[in-house]
């Protein structure tokens, strides 16, 4: 093979490099940082000082768009998580469950939560909790840890009466609580 110090067809090589670079850039730009629909729901407020509950504006929203499941929401889901008020301490997951039609708080609805913490992976660390008369649920856990690159929380509803919802949300390592509201729609 004859070796020169320049490619034989530099424009073809240049085109290949430009196309690969553009393809990689497009693939990265079109991705979502934490995965599709996985918004950051955590904050660093002192959960002990601020018990779960909506502020006044949140208690009466003008509209309640149905909460949609997002990709990855069912990851590691095992049906019928055991009922529990606590999975440890140091991190609070809370929210309000409402009807999508009419925005009414739902009382006695079972919400399932699962996440990885220092005490176990997502399949070990799961609980069912129920909403109160104002539609609020609250679960205290050990802080979530990033076994798969980012701390994330799963919340699901799959009982009869409303359409099932499975969502995956993320938090930051320093967060101490997460707020995840659900608006449940009938049918489906």
């Amino acid at each position, binding site marked *: 093979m004859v070796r020169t110090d320049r*490619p*034989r067809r530099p424009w073809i*090589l240049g085109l290949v*490099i430009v196309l690969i670079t553009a393809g990689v850039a497009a693939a990265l730009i079109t*991705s979502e940082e934490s995965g599709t629909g996985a918004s950051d729901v955590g904050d660093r407020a002192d959960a002990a000082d601020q018990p779960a509950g909506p502020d006044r504006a949140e208690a009466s929203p003008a509209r309640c768009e149905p909460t949609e499941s997002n990709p990855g929401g069912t990851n590691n889901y095992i049906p019928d998580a055991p009922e529990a008020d606590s999975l440890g301490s140091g991190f609070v997951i809370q929210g309000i469950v409402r009807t999508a039609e009419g925005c009414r708080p739902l009382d006695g609805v079972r919400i399932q939560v699962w996440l*990885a913490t220092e005490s176990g*992976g997502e399949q070990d660390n799961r609980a069912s909790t129920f909403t109160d008369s104002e539609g609020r649920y609250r679960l205290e856990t050990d802080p979530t840890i990033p076994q*798969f690159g*980012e701390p994330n929380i799963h919340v699901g509803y799959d009982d009869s009466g409303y359409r099932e919802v499975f969502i995956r949300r993320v938090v930051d390592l320093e967060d101490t609580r997460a707020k995840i509201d659900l608006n449940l729609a009938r049918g489906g």
Partner: protein
Amino acid sequence: MAAGLTAVVVVPVGLALSDGHLASGPPALVLSTAAAALAVSALALQPLLAGSHRISWHRALGGAALALVLVHIGGLFLVEVDDTLFAMSPDGPTRARMALIGTLALIAVVILGVARARLPMSGPTWRILHAFLATLAIVLGFGHALLTDGALDGPGTAVLLGFGAAAVLAVAGAYVARARRARRAGSG
């Protein structure tokens, strides 16, 4: 020299394995994390070997780097199949997309190296393509590690930035050195 080499190998894996995200992690997660941290060291050293006369070492370490990346991915499958498949899906987070494309680039680099004599391309074309894909694998691999919470945070971030920048510069240096060597061989 030996102390520096040891540091390049030991520091990333030491930092990664001492992080709290492995607290409740199964052995497969520890293995996966260790393999990924060792791959960081391998990718950092590869361009230095490419620029030296130790091409047989460069080839061996290239194969080892790819094997470590595959062990990393395999370990994640053993930890949680759902999360691994989700990460590799179109809905996965940006860091996972970087890892996926970076792995493909690394596979392409290794194939180019193994099949060099049988490929219908000139020496300069091969060198440019090999260097381009190696740079892509390094940038995306280190980018993946930087965006990943847990294993190499804090001082690990500084290590990744330093190693990554050095590796990219070393690719350019290796390309220049190899091209000069080829020109001398051609004119001699």
